[in-house]
């Protein structure tokens, strides 16, 4: 009885409780009364006790109005966010399919962005690892400079705290057992101090090492130390550098690679004091006369600028000082060349524009991934309108709903980063094994990935969040299906359109850039480049005299000729035929055409062509003859030119013409007359494709060198498999002179691949991005349209119940999908064309927009849209209308 009265009391009081809490309040009191009745059943006056207990409900219901208003931190925007995170992680864990799809979509986009970023970070913004405060360093290049100029510069410019100098050299380094070729540099003794570079073991150079008597010391790189001494101590060991005994006094920090050019491929491995120059550099030759690719300076002065001075002011002062210092060093007709620049900036606006052009594509992939994610979030939100409405009804503010959805977004973004980073690390380290570009995941890349993921999720989760929370409490609780009317799906339809547009833009752009990159790897003009071996030697590494070098190369050609499987052997400078991007200045001959004045010299690619160079390279003779034994005299009297030179200089009739030739930096009076006795086919230099339509340049070859040539490359034409001949050639070289280091033996085909490996990677990355984008877009489109159609199931059911034929239903849904796709592809086509205009303005060799490729891409996307609209529509039109109408 008392229980019944108590229950009635609760029911009566129920109406006084706040609406949102009413049900729970009632439930609690019902349970408590049952509990009280049970607990007091054995006690005296139990009925009275239960009633007295129930009477407390009145005070409670009053307090409900007072307490919850002051409670649970209303107004504090972040109050309870921890619960939001807990709830979000639980609900994401429950919706595994949704979470996986969103994270996958986001990860692909973020990985594309972060991967591109890490490459740019590694390759394009060069920094010198292990060098302190690089932005306070200034590099000064001066024509015909000497180590002494450093002191003059320091005196001339008070803002320089110190100036060091470096001269890159390739050196033969040997311990007792092996000889290796190492990239090194002669440096002033303050080099490590000016750079602030640390020495990991032993010591750096002291001023006393600058004296010739003490100079036989070296600091070696970590890698070289490992190569020569394994894990043993390197400091104190004796090595031979270019034939000179040298003691290792220090090992540089592992990251330090010198400052001559950034990137692991150009890492320096050994540093010697400048006082070693006469012993390790070619005797009797001016340091600046050494053959190095044109445009690269030999001596670089690196100055540190004091903290109190502005770099810009110092750059101006240094330019003026270096120009005045060198004014009378160069004979009158030649230009004094000086260049001053901060160490930290090596790439100009041109590069920045190209980076922006390249970054556009991963950015589009990210956008597509984001739209997928946004759409899924939106779809999930729509499905949860009731959930949201209940929360609103319970008194949650709109901000709380938006905040909760954003928290979900943040969790998804963090998950995506957690997936992306290890994946990217693995991919980049796998890539690094093939191409040491030095791209790796560091804090910057992780920060970038996180920022990209968070920004995209916040941007793309915000719209769905605002949209979902806009549904009032009544909307969902009142009607059982919010969001199935056509106007509500407009946002999603817009997303479909944007996605079509982006995918089209991405694919069309990728498709357009690919051929540009592919053309870089074009033909070489040589017969079968995989059968041509190139073996570089550099007797300067051994500090050999010119006569000694000449003897070595003569014997080498003769010896290798006898190796079985060898068809032809020739010898020439490494870039005499193909410059591999270094330009004609890397192997120049100075030419005066008939009737030219002393000032009208031309710099033409070519030089000494020893042995059967032309046959070995596999270039056909077009007119005249090749060199004969009688032509091989010290001052060459004949020459062979290629077809391009014949056409450009002699209108095709080159045979028998006489021209003057000279070595670089030689005067007209020293030039020889040579008669053109042969015309050969031009070799194709892919790098020239960038700047002109003709991939050939004029070239001239001579039967004898015009100047001492310590560094030459052996060109070996093999009858069969060229790569298997490497050991035999190595052996042959060792039998001629075991001290000479044999450079890396590669085929021309491999060199081409190596030379354009970055471009190829870019091409492959573009193709990969295109495929990723298309897959993402097709998957996203399918999901989105299928969802849109599924939302209309009820409407379709109604239409069918009213007598619509299945065919009309199909047409209806297909029309909707196709209209959106059409609008999207119109926009996408415009984007693609706009991108192509920008790309053509900023990158060489980009062909005009390929409209057929554009149409093909559009067709693929249309097919995806078609399939995506067709399947759910067919399903919807097949089911019994009654079943659909009865569905909750």
């Amino acid at each position, binding site marked *: 009885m008392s229980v019944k009265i108590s229950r009635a009391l609760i029911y009566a009081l129920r109406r006084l409780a706040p609406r949102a809490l009413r049900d729970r309040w009632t439930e609690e009191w019902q349970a408590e009364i049952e*509990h009280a009745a049970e607990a007091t059943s054995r006690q005296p006056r139990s009925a009275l006790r239960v009633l007295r207990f129930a009477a407390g*409900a*009145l005070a409670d219901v009053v*307090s409900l109005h007072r*307490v919850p208003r002051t409670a649970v931190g209303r107004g504090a925007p972040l109050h309870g966010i921890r619960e939001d995170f807990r709830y979000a992680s639980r609900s994401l864990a429950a919706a595994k399919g949704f979470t996986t799809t969103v994270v996958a979509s986001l990860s692909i986009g973020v990985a594309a962005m972060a991967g591109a970023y890490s490459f740019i970070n590694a390759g394009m913004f060069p920094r010198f690892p292990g060098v302190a405060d690089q932005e306070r360093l200034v590099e000064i290049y001066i024509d015909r400079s000497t180590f002494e100029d450093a002191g003059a510069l320091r005196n001339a410019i008070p803002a320089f705290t110190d100036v060091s100098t470096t001269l890159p050299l390739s050196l033969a380094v040997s311990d007792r057992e092996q000889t290796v070729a190492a990239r090194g540099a002669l440096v002033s003794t303050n080099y490590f101090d000016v750079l602030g570079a640390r020495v990991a073991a032993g010591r750096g150079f002291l001023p006393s090492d600058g004296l010739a008597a003490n100079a036989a010391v070296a600091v070696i790189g970590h890698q070289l130390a490992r190569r020569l001494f394994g894990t043993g101590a390197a400091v104190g060991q004796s090595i031979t550098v270019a034939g000179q005994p040298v003691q290792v006094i220090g090992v540089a920090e592992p990251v330090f690679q010198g400052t001559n050019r950034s990137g692991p491929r150009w890492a320096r491995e050994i540093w010697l004091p400048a006082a070693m120059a006469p012993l390790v550099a070619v005797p009797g030759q001016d340091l600046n006369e050494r053959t190095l690719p044109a445009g690269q300076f030999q001596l670089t002065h690196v100055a540190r600028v004091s903290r109190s001075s502005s770099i810009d002011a110092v750059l101006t002062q240094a330019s003026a000082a270096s120009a005045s210092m060198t004014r009378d060093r160069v004979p009158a007709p030649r230009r004094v060349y000086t260049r001053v620049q901060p160490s930290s900036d090596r790439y100009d606006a041109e590069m920045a524009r190209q980076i922006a052009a390249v970054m556009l594509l991963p950015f589009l992939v990210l956008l597509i991934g984001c739209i997928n994610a946004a759409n899924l979030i939106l779809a999930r939100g729509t499905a949860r309108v009731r959930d949201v409405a209940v929360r609103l009804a319970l008194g949650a503010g709109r901000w709380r709903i938006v905040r909760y959805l954003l928290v979900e977004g943040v969790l998804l973004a963090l998950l995506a980063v957690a997936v992306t980073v290890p994946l990217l690390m693995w991919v980049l380290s796998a890539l690094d094994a093939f191409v040491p570009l030095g791209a790796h995941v560091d804090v910057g890349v992780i920060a970038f990935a996180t920022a990209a993921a968070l920004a995209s999720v916040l941007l793309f989760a915000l719209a769905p969040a605002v949209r979902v929370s806009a549904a009032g409490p009544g909307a969902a609780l009142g009607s059982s299906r919010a969001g199935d009317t056509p106007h509500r799906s407009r946002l999603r339809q817009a997303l479909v359109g944007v996605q079509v547009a982006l995918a089209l833009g991405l694919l069309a752009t990728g498709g357009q850039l690919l051929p540009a990159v592919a053309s870089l790897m074009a033909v070489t003009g040589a017969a079968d480049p995989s059968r041509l071996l190139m073996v570089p030697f550099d007797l300067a590494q051994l500090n050999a005299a010119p006569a000694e070098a000449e003897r070595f190369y003569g014997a080498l050609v003769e010896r290798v000729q006898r190796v079985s499987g060898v068809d032809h052997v020739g010898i020439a400078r490494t870039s005499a035929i193909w410059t591999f991007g270094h330009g004609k200045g890397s192997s120049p001959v100075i030419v005066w055409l008939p009737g030219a004045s002393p000032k009208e010299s031309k710099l033409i690619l070519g030089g000494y062509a020893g042995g059967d160079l032309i046959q070995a390279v596999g270039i056909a003779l077009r007119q005249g003859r090749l060199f004969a034994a009688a032509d091989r005299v010290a001052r060459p009297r004949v020459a062979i030119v290629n077809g391009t030179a014949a056409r450009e200089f002699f209108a095709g009739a080159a045979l028998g013409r006489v021209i003057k030739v000279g070595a670089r930096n030689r005067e007209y009076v020293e030039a020889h007359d040579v008669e053109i006795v042969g015309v050969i086919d031009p070799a194709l230099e892919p790098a020239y494709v960038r700047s002109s339509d003709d991939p050939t340049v004029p070239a001239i070859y001579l039967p004898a060198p015009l100047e001492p040539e310590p560094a030459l490359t052996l060109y070996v034409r093999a009858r069969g498999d060229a790569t298997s001949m490497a050991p035999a050639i190595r052996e042959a070289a060792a039998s001629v002179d075991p001290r000479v280091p044999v450079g890396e033996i590669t085929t021309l085909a491999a060199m081409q691949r190596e030379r354009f490996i970055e471009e190829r990677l870019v091409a492959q990355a573009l193709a990969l991005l295109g495929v990723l984008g298309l897959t993402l877009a097709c998957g996203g489109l399918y999901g989105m349209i299928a969802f849109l159609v599924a939302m209309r199931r009820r409407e379709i059911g109604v239409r069918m119940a009213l007598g619509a034929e299945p065919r009309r239903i199909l047409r209806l849904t297909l029309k909707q999908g196709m209209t959106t796709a059409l609008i999207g592809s119109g926009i996408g086509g415009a984007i693609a064309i706009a991108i192509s205009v920008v790309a053509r303005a900023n990158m060489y060799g980009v062909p005009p927009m390929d409209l057929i490729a554009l149409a093909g891409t559009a067709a693929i996307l249309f097919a995806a849209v078609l399939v995506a609209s067709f399947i759910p529509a067919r399903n919807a039109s097949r089911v019994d209308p009654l079943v659909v109408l009865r569905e909750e």
Partner: protein
Amino acid sequence: MRTYMADPALSYTGLFVLQALARGYRFGFDIMDVTGLPSGTIYPALRRLEALELVRSDWENEERAHKKGRPRRRYYELTAAGKRHLAEAEARYRAVGQLFTGRSRA
């Protein structure tokens, strides 16, 4: 933010309720029973403590309640902050208690 959380002034009632919860009484009726306070005092105190996050409530497993043929129960327990507050209050009252014993001896 939430400065009122820093030192909520606990009434004796609040303290008794906290203490009862600490001892393992988890339902309104049980707390009333053990403290001897009327339910009209206990419930508003529980609401207030919950709002101050010294106490949190949860619902009994629905299935279990269903099996026993009664509505599911709401039970209360201390939060970490509640435990801390209780410990502080206990220390304070013990000190006050010593004050009183000292005086009665004198």
